[in-house]
């Protein structure tokens, strides 16, 4: 487990996201789904990105791989990636159809989706789909590809992999499909795995198997993992560091341990109070009043101000607070902790 941020180590971070903004240009206005996100991922680190629906976490993940489609557009930011060969590039600077971009997807950064049934094609066998990936990214011979994929299926815990290779997605159970999805993601030995709600659709016992598997593979394959989820319990158990997202921005980030022991942002506090803690016999859950607003042409104020129990009129509704380091490695975006305001740029008032 790594401690906190190390922004200026001797080696650059495996992945560094700087000021990422992804907007959707709709008839109703500009939806600022991701509005200035910075994050870092170190070697073998496990990062958690927590957010409710509408927080922009999935759009953020898609932006990293340049998978945003119109009317969405990445308007600003850098995604600095240290590739497997050691070369450092900005993913966002590449041309949309660039060969390099295709080689990054799957090869350097792979994605595991929530719904494996919709991520696989229903008319091709599991084996054929994974083999296609492998053939594209390696120069193995056809026969060797099959051996390689069967071995991969075995490694992710699929029993009878030789037979499963020739089966179609619908023939596998949910847990098996998720394993196959992981096998596909791992097929090119990526150094970064982006897992978007990888276990949300699964039963608890299967979830435990999958999380355990990811942990093992992370060590044996030297991977960094980014979990994107709304499940605080999964985050607590699997990650080293956490970013809490609200309405397109990170509102708090620190080590997982600090976040659960000493949450500073009112949203994080409320969020932690709103889930039942097993074994603690809570009599009443805390409630966050209202629901997440839609970030269409959001006003320049703290996004949480309307639901915040500690909101200060005349302060919180005047400008967007900046994400400031309150204690080493612990960043919070809240006027209760710092008066600093988010600097404006050309995208702030459009």
């Amino acid at each position, binding site marked *: 487990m790594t401690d906190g941020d190390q922004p200026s180590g001797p080696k650059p971070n495996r992945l560094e996201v700087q000021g990422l903004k992804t907007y959707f240009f709709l008839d109703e206005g500009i939806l600022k789904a991701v509005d200035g996100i910075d994050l870092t991922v170190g070697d073998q680190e496990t990062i958690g990105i927590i957010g*409710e*629906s509408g927080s922009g976490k999935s759009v953020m993940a898609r932006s990293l791989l340049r998978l945003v489609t119109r009317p969405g557009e990445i308007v600003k930011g850098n995604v600095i990636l240290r590739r497997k060969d050691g070369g450092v590039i900005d993913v966002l600077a590449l041309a949309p159809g660039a060969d390099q971009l295709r080689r990054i997807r799957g090869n350097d950064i792979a994605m595991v989706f929530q719904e494996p049934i919709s991520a696989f094609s229903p008319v091709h066998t599991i084996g054929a789909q994974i083999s296609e990936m492998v053939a594209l990214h390696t120069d193995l011979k056809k026969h060797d590809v099959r051996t390689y994929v069967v071995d991969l299926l075995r490694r992710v815990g699929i*029993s009878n992999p030789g037979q499963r290779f020739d089966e179609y997605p619908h023939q596998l*159970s*949910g*847990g*098996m499909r998720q394993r196959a999805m992981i096998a596909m993601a791992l097929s090119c030995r990526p150094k970064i795995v982006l897992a978007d709600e990888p276990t949300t659709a699964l*039963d*608890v*016992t*299967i*979830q*435990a*198997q999958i*999380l*355990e598997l990811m942990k093992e593979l992370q060590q044996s394959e030297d991977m960094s993992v980014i979990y994107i989820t*709304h*499940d*605080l*319990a*999964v*985050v*607590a*158990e699997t990650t080293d560091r956490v970013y809490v997202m609200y309405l397109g921005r990170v509102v708090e980030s620190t080590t*997982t*341990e600090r976040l*659960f022991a000493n949450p500073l942002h009112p949203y994080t506090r*409320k*969020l*932690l109070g*709103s*889930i*039942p*803690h*097993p*074994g*603690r*016999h*809570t009599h*009443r*859950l*805390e*409630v*966050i009043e209202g*629901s*997440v607003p839609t970030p269409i042409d959001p006003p320049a104020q703290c996004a949480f101000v309307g639901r915040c129990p500690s909101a200060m009129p005349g302060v919180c509704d005047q400008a967007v607070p900046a994400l400031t380091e309150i204690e080493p490695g612990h960043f919070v975006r809240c006027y209760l902790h710092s008066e600093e305001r988010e600097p404006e740029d050309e995208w702030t008032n459009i």
Partner: protein
Amino acid sequence: MSGPTSEPDGAAGDRRILEVQGLTKYFDITKGLLRRVVGHVRAVDDVDLYVNAGETLAIVGESGSGKTTLGRMIVRAIEPTRGQIQLRTNGAGGSDWTDLTRLRGDELRATRRHFHMIFQDPYSSLDPRMRVMDIVTEPLIYNKVADGAEARQIARETLRLVGMADRHMQRYPHAFSGGQRQRIGIARSLVCNPKLIVCDEAVSALDVSIQAQILNLLKDLQERLHLSYVFIAHDLAVVEYIAHRVAVMYVGKVVELSETREVFRRPLHPYTEALLSAMPAPEPNRQRARIVLKGEPANPADPPSGCYFHPRCSYATDHCVRETPPLREVTPGRYAACHYAETLELKGMSGAAERQTA
């Protein structure tokens, strides 16, 4: 068999509002042009349970365990293969037991107002072309409880009860967020003043902050209206928060049934232990040896011999392979279907509070 409903007319029986006995649902597996029946999926297999007035009974289990089929049979959305569903329609202590499985047509329709269901998906369970007011008055009219101005008045009061403002009542469902839609769904199920509500994964599709609102609302309503809930869920943390008693299902059978606190503190069935162990907790640095179950739940169309759980159970013996353990009372009020329920020392969630100091 000394099942959990063995003494319906005893002293304890007075508080009961629902009794399910031997409830079974086999789905046919057909083959070929003539749809010849070649086997059965034992979705729910001989389930006995009861619910007291003002109580929440949670039914937990993995997908395929039959919990949803059980819930749907209770509200008569699925026809049981056999078994009884006794509902006391005039409240606890009354004597009007009705066997729901015997009712047909108009009789069933006349009884439907006493039980209702809340669904998982607040997006697909409301008719997008009906206004909120009409969605909530519909059950009153259908069940011939009230109509016209009276129905609208009852609906308005119910909607206020679940926290909806008057100005919302003429809108369509699309104007509302998931949490508000679920409130509308709850209002719809409450409007006929039922005794029993079956909540099928009622909060699973909601965001955590909204989930807390709905869970608190369900608790408040239960206190105010003395409602009984059958709460079908897979999230054990939620179940611990809301339920008084828990029934754990595995491949169509209830394998454990006890007070919630007891189940979480010291489970009696190895499957319950594994479920509790697999449950992630929102506490980092928690030291524990997790039991990761191997394989997947048994196929209910072709269950293993003996105890259905034996292929995945680390305590299984030859006895478990040969003989099916019945659900029996292990200690007063605690039921488990395991040959070794008395001797196994299974781990629960105890010590959850102390872990923080570790």
